[in-house]
């Protein structure tokens, strides 16, 4: 297993932002999105097309995580980008464009979910009571590269099935922090959550996913061969 280097950093790399989400390198250097937003405000629609292409996959995944429905996710993605365009004058620039866009996409996703549940309130910031994952139960170690025991489509199916059962508030925090590489602060701002709430959800999401994936990835007992249980 990866171990900690004595006195050094953990061997596992820090969550690195995806190539499309660039960190602000210091206060004096403006985020590249700022120039694109300014061009859109000046009437250059092609600059908005750049923003759409830069973030559409991420927005789609967030919508899919919350709505759990491909058609809804498509509609949410379209509505979120249109709404962001309409409201661009309200974007102050004191938050990142993507953080602001995620907030719109999350609200659109929740509205879509509410419609499907015939008006029942759905919220991303409701306290989710669950004991699952708070204490690890399945403590079997995994094979060294467990994903290699599956085809790409099998693995994708396992990963989708595994994350599907988590509460929406857990899934989106995990997606933003661990997959897309947003900071805790940006995730909190995008979701309208406190920083402790983001941290709490992230820990529980990570542990629950780990526990569920163990069903597929753990070593077989009593065998020297690396195996999996399907």
């Amino acid at each position, binding site marked *: 297993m990866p171990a900690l280097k004595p006195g050094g*950093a953990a061997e596992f790399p820090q969550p690195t932002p995806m190539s499309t989400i660039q960190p602000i390198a210091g206060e004096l250097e403006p985020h590249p999105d700022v120039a694109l937003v300014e061009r859109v405000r000046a009437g250059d*629609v092609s600059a908005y097309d750049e923003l759409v292409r830069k973030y559409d996959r991420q927005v789609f995944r967030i919508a899919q995580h919350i709505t759990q429905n491909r058609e809804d996710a498509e509609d949410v993605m379209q509505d979120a980008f249109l709404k962001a365009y309409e409201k661009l004058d309200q974007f102050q620039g004191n938050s990142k464009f993507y953080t602001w866009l995620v907030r719109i996409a999350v609200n659109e996703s929740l509205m879509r979910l509410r419609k499907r549940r015939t008006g029942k309130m759905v919220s991303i910031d409701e306290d989710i009571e669950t004991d699952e994952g708070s204490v690890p139960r399945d403590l079997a170690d995994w094979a060294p590269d467990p994903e290699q025991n599956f085809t790409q489509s099998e693995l994708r199916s396992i990963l989708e099935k595994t994350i599907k059962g988590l509460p929406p508030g857990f899934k989106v925090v995990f997606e933003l922090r661990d997959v897309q590489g947003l900071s805790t602060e940006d995730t909190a701002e995008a979701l309208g959550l406190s920083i402790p709430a983001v941290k709490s959800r992230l820990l529980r999401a990570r542990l629950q996913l780990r526990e569920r994936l163990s069903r597929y990835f753990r070593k077989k007992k009593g065998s020297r061969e690396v195996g999996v249980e399907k």
Partner: protein
Amino acid sequence: MTCTEFLALLDDLIDDTVTTEMRADLQEHLRGCEHCEVTLSTTRKTIQIYRSHQIYDMPAGLRDRLHAAIMARCKKGC
């Protein structure tokens, strides 16, 4: 350090936001606790797998269709 205390700091350890002193305490616990060692390694692996095998990707055709719809509406002033 107990396993519960270790677990409370698991994310900080994974995200590398612990102090040198705290890291030493966590390492000390890991040396004598196989359960926490497995929890740490498999949690890291969970994150790594989700990051490197991104799910819910959009088909190319859908992407182009949605782009066309968005651009058409935006050019009309939304």
